């Protein structure tokens, strides 16, 4: 994603309290035009609140919200160039599918013919053609979801806000809709802001992801960077699995590099310093399970240590192992893709194995 585009939505130091509870705490972020932006975080971290704030359904206690180059402070919900797909879809039960989609155009002053054409095109786009006479209670979950989408998109908003739109769908339908949603976004070219607590959804669909926790933004980055370079242990644990191992800084060199003692893995060299780096600093190093390679023989890798298999579980496409590395107290998790020939049995419980890794695959976090 190029960053030279001007922001479609910008929040500047926005805070929102419900009573004493800080739902949003000094949030600043800029979302680009035509970007697929996801907000990811555990339940109750303020994702919906942020979306509702942008939609104008909540009002910030402090801070500034810009959509395009307009300050939204005085603009009511019905005047904002953004539309929302609600967590429960919020389809009007007393209106037919066609009337639901037409609802947002009631104030547009379109001629009957133009209106009908627009609705027809929209229903075609979301594959609901022929259902315009149906009542919402005669629709399946996926169809309701499409009605909600069509109803919002037909207004041609600058920004589409989606609050966990796929949360209520079953797995296969969810995957299909993820795909469709991404395609739709690319074809209409408007900014999508998607709220989700499903990390795979966020990783696979987004241009950028904001990870939130307790009303704050922890990190905003591309899916790749969020996964490979999490900026704190919260992000690292929230997205994917991560092994944490207690470590100690042994030496800080003049060229900026540091040497770290990791029990069981020996002395590792890092080029980046932690903010409070000093000799003897207790901190943690981390490595993702799939970055550790498991083998029965010692390898030529720069870092290769030996350990015992504690548990071994077969998951079909991959196997997971818990391994206690000699000299390290906490067992590490290792994930291996089962690419081997059939008949090759994975290491079993109690077997002695070798783990190898690139030293660069290790990350460091302060405690």
């Amino acid at each position, binding site marked *: 994603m190029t960053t030279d585009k001007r922001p479609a939505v910008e929040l500047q130091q926005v805070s929102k309290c419900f009573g004493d509870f800080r739902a949003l705490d000094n949030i600043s972020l800029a979302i680009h035009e035509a970007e697929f932006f996801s907000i990811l975080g555990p339940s109750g971290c303020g994702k919906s609140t942020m979306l*509702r704030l942008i*939609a*104008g*359904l909540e009002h910030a206690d402090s801070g500034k919200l810009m959509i395009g180059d307009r300050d939204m402070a005085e603009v*009511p*919900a*019905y*005047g904002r160039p953004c*539309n*929302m797909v*609600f*967590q*429960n879809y*919020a*389809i*009007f*039960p*007393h209106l037919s599918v066609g009337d639901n989609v037409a*609802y*947002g155009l*009631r*104030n*547009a002053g379109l001629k009957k013919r133009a209106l009908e054409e627009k609705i027809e095109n929209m229903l075609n786009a979301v594959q609901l053609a022929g259902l315009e006479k149906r*009542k*919402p*209670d005669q629709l399946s979950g996926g169809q309701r979801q499409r009605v909600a989408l069509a*109803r*919002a998109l037909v*207004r041609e908003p600058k920004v589409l806000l989606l609050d966990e739109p796929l949360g209520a769908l079953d797995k296969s339908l969810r995957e299909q809709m993820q795909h469709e949603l991404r395609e739709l976004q690319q074809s209409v070219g408007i900014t999508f802001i998607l709220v989700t607590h499903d990390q795979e959804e966020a990783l696979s669909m987004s241009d950028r992801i904001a990870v939130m926790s307790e009303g704050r933004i922890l990190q905003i980055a591309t899916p790749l960077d969020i996964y490979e370079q999490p900026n704190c242990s919260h992000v690292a644990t929230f997205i994917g699995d991560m092994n944490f191992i207690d470590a100690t800084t042994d030496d800080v060199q003049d060229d900026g590099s540091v040497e770290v003692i990791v029990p069981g893995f020996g002395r590792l060299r890092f080029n980046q310093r932690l903010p409070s780096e000093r000799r003897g600093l207790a901190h943690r190093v981390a490595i993702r399970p799939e970055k550790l390679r498991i083998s029965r023989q010692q390898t030529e890798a720069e870092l290769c240590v030996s350990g015992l298999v504690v548990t071994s579980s077969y998951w079909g496409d991959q196997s997971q192992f818990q391994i206690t590395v000699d000299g390290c107290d906490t067992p590490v998790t290792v994930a291996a893709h089962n690419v081997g020939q059939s008949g090759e049995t994975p290491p079993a419980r109690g077997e002695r194995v070798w783990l190898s890794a690139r030293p660069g695959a290790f990350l460091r976090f302060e405690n």
Partner: protein
Amino acid sequence: MAGMRRIGQRLRGTFSWGYLFFLYLPILILPLFSFNDSYYISFPLKGFTTRWYQELSADPSILGALLTSLQIACAAAVLSTLLGLMSARALTRHRVRGEKSLLGVIMLPLVVPELIIGVSLLTMLNHASAGLGKWAVVLGHVLICYPFSVAILMSRMEGFDKSLEEASLDLGSTHWQTFRWVVLPLALPGVIASVLLTFTISFDEFLIAFFLSSNEPTLPVYIWGQLRFPKKLPSTLALGTAIIFVSFAVVAFAEWLRRRDAPKKEASQ
């Protein structure tokens, strides 16, 4: 065992029929004697006549009372439903301070005897020299109808999904349009129920009307006055019969309307 059950069933049947009999017998008396060619309500019946109906349609004062009653009932039904709609919306949608006690105050007229309401309104209106008459009765009736409207509409609006209104705002409708296009259609069955019920309550209310109607008697007040003149009684029966049939027709129509809309309305809950 089976014998016991049979006796139980028989008892239940007898009870139901007896209940219906005692409940509706007096009402059946009305049409019966309204076609009876005699001033006196007593068996055996004399000949068949429609005289009382002719007399009725030629009597301007009873028709005037009927008109007054209809006007008052319409005004009371519309006003109390409107007020009820606003209150129910405020109480179900917004966080109102002291909601519990407010609701208590709203429901108070349900337990205050109408006698008290009538007397106190009479004294108050007299002191304010506001004059009595139709509007005074409407005022009193709105007071007793309002709790019913609030109760009916609150139970209807309690289950409303707040996000529907938010969706409407988000889709470019103002607050007023949202009310018109989303809240009102969803509340419509409740609104109809409230109008029908409050209309009926107002239409046959006696005490308050008696105190406040002054020289514009409502139908119940007028009929009560006529009971002193035995010769007027049969045409009163004729009027009663007409009212029963009209209200049956209205209730049947309302029920038909509700049934026809039922599948639609179910979805909105």
